[in-house]
C-alpha cells in the first residue's frame, strides 16, 4: 500500500500522538501552577482557616449572575475566637475525621462522593439547623456524636450510623464545614437558600 497518504500513515499519527500529548500535558502543568497559586488557603477563592471566626453567608451576585459566599462581621465558632494556627488545627482535625469515618461514601463534598446522604459543601449554612448560631452549632455537635437519637431523616428512614465521633472531633467537623462553606465554588450549589434573611 504505497499509495497511503502521509496524513493517514502510521508515522504521521505517531508524531501527532507525541506532540498532542506533550502539548496538552505542558498546558496542564502551567494551569496547575496557576490553580495552586489561586487556591491556597487565605487567597481569594479559598478562605484562610480563620474564617471560622466570621459570619458567612451565600448570596446571589447580580453582577456575576451566580451564587457566591459573603464573609462579613465576626461570629466566632462555638463563641470562641481562634488564631489562624488554632483554626487550621481544628479544621484539620475535622477533615481527618471525615476521612477516618468514611463520610464520602454516603455524602458528597463539593459535589463529589456517594449520593446516599446530603451534600456537605454548604451544609453549615443549611436553614434546617435553625437561625441562631449557638443553637445551630449545638444541634450539629449533638447530631454528629449521636446521629441515631438525633436523627434527621426527613421521613425517609435513612439514618446516619453512630460512628464513634468524639466531641472534639465533632467540633473539628463543624469547623471544617464552616470553613468549606466559605469557599468560592463558582456558584455550586445553585439557588441554595441560607439561614439568614438580612
Amino acid at each position, binding site marked *: *500500500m*504505497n499509495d*497511503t497518504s502521509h496524513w493517514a500513515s*502510521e508515522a504521521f*499519527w*505517531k508524531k*501527532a*500522538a507525541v506532540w*498532542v*500529548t506533550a502539548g*496538552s*500535558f505542558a498546558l*496542564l502543568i502551567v*494551569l496547575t501552577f496557576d*490553580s495552586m497559586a489561586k*487556591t491556597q488557603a487565605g487567597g481569594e*477563592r*479559598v478562605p484562610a*482557616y480563620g474564617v471560622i471566626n466570621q459570619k458567612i453567608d451565600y448570596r446571589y451576585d447580580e453582577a456575576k449572575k451566580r451564587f457566591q459566599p459573603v464573609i462579613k462581621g465576626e461570629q466566632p465558632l462555638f463563641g470562641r475566637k481562634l488564631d489562624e494556627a488554632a483554626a487550621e488545627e481544628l479544621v*484539620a*482535625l*475535622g*477533615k*481527618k475525621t*471525615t*476521612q*477516618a469515618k*468514611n463520610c*464520602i*461514601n*454516603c455524602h*458528597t*463534598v*463539593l*459535589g*463529589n*462522593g*456517594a*449520593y*446516599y446522604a*446530603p*451534600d456537605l459543601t454548604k451544609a453549615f449554612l443549611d436553614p434546617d439547623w435553625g437561625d441562631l448560631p449557638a443553637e445551630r452549632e449545638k444541634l450539629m455537635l449533638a447530631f454528629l456524636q449521636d446521629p441515631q437519637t438525633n436523627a434527621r431523616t*426527613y*421521613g425517609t428512614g*435513612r*439514618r446516619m*450510623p453512630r*460512628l464513634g465521633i*468524639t466531641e472534639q*472531633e465533632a467540633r*473539628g467537623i463543624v469547623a471544617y464545614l464552616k470553613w468549606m462553606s466559605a*469557599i468560592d465554588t*463558582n*456558584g*455550586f*450549589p*445553585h*439557588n*441554595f*437558600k441560607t439561614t439568614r434573611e438580612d
Partner: protein
Amino acid sequence: MSNGTIDLGGLNGGQRLALHYFTVAIVLFAAQILFGLLAGIQFVAPDFLYGVLDFNVNRMVHINAMVVWMLYGFIGAVYWFLEEESGVPVAGLALGKLAFWVLTAAVTVVVLVYLLVQTGAGEDLTIWFVNEGREYIEAPRWADIGIVAVMLVFFYNVAGTFSKGRWSGISGVLTLDLVALAGLYLAGMFYVTNITVDQYWWWWVIHLWVEATWEVLVGCIMAWSLMKLLGVSRNIVQTWLYIEVALMFGSGILGLGHHYFWIGTPEYWLTIGGFFSALEPIPLVAMVVHSIYDAGVHKFRNSNHPALGWVIAHAFGNFLGAGVWGFMHTLPQINLYTHGTQWSASHGHLAFFGAYATINIAFFYLAVQKARGNVWMGAQLADGGWKWKWSMGLLNLGVIGMTVALLIAGYEQSFVERAVHGSTWEGYFAAQSHPWFQQAMFWRLAFGGVTAAGLVLLIWDLLTIGKGEIRRAPELHPEPQAAG
C-alpha cells in the same frame, strides 16, 4: 491431542501468571456485584444491615473491588501478550509472581480491615492503616506504598521484556502509558487539609486514570486482541492506536477541567473543562469506526465468538457509557444541576462496564480458549453456546437497566432537589422521597439482580466452555506488514 481439558503446558510463563490475575479479577468482580447489591438494597430498605455493614462500607467495597478487578484484568492481559508481542520470555518473571502474591495478600487485608474495622479516629494512624477516606482510593497509605512497589515490578517486567526482545508501536505506547499510570497514583498519596487542593490532585488520579491512561491501556489491549481475533494487520491497528492516543490525550488531559468547575478552582476551568471534555467522545467514536471496519473487512470470521462479542460490546459500551453519557452532563451549564446526583452514578455504571468490564471479559475468553489447548470457540458450539450468549445478554441488560433507572433518578434529583428546592438538605430529602426516585431505585435493584444472574452464568461458562471440544482453532497470522 486436545479435547478441551485444561492444559497449561501450552501457555508461556506470562500467560500462566495472567491466569492468576484473571482468577482474582473474577473473584473481585463477584465481590463488586455482591456489595453493589447490598448497597442497592439499602436505597430501597434503609434498615437493611444498618449498624453492621452500613451503606458507606458496602459502597466503598463496591467501587474498590471494581477498580482493583479492572486493574487485575489489565495487568493480566498485558502479561498474557507480553511474550508473544516481544518475542522473548518475560524478564524477571519470578519477581512478577511474587508481586502477584504480595498484591493479592495486601488486597485481602485491606478488604478485611474495611469490613471488620471500618472506621477509626480522626488521626493520621487511621489514614495509614484503616481507611484514607477518599473516594476510589480509600486504600490506607501502607497499601498505597505496596501498590506502587508492585507496579514497579510490573513495569520492570514489561519494559525489561520489550527491551530484551522487540519493540513495537503497541509496546511503545503501552510502556509509556504505564509510566504515566503509575506516576499519577503518586498524586493521590498525600494528606492536605485544604479540600480544594485535595480534590484537585485527587482528580489527577481518578480522571487521568479513567479518562486517559486506562483508555489508552485498553486501546493497546484492544489493538492486540484485534490482531489475534481477526488477523487484522499490525500496520492498521497501530495507526489507529496512534490516532486514538492523539485524540484521547488531546481531549482527555485538559478534559480533566470538567472536574474543576465547582471545587474552588478558578473560573477559567469552566471554559477549558467544558470545551475539552466535549471533545472526549471523539476518540470513542473513532474506536467504533475502527472496530466495525476491521470486523467488516474480516467478515466476523473468527474462532472465539464470545471474545469477539465482548470486544464489540466494548466498542459500543465505551462510546455510549463514557462518550454519550459523559457528554450529556459535561458542560457546566447543565453540570451545575447534575453534579453530585445520580446522574454521575448512571454515567459511572455504564462507562466502567462498557469501557472496561467488557474488554476484560473478552480477554478472559481468549485466555480460557488457550488454556484449553486452543480449542474451537467459534460457531456451532456443542450446546449452541447458550451460556455465553445468555450471560452476555443478561449482563448488558442488567447494566443498561441500572443505567436508565439511575438516569431517571438523576433527572428527578436535578429538577426537584436542585432546580426547585435549591440544594438544601430539605430539598435533597424531598427528591429522595419522591415516587419517581423511589421507583427508579427499585428498578435499579431489580436490574442489579439481572446483572448478578448474568455474572453467575458468565463464571459457569468460563469454567466449562470448550470442555470436551475436539476441534482446534486455526492459528491466525496477522496480515503481513504493509510495505512502505
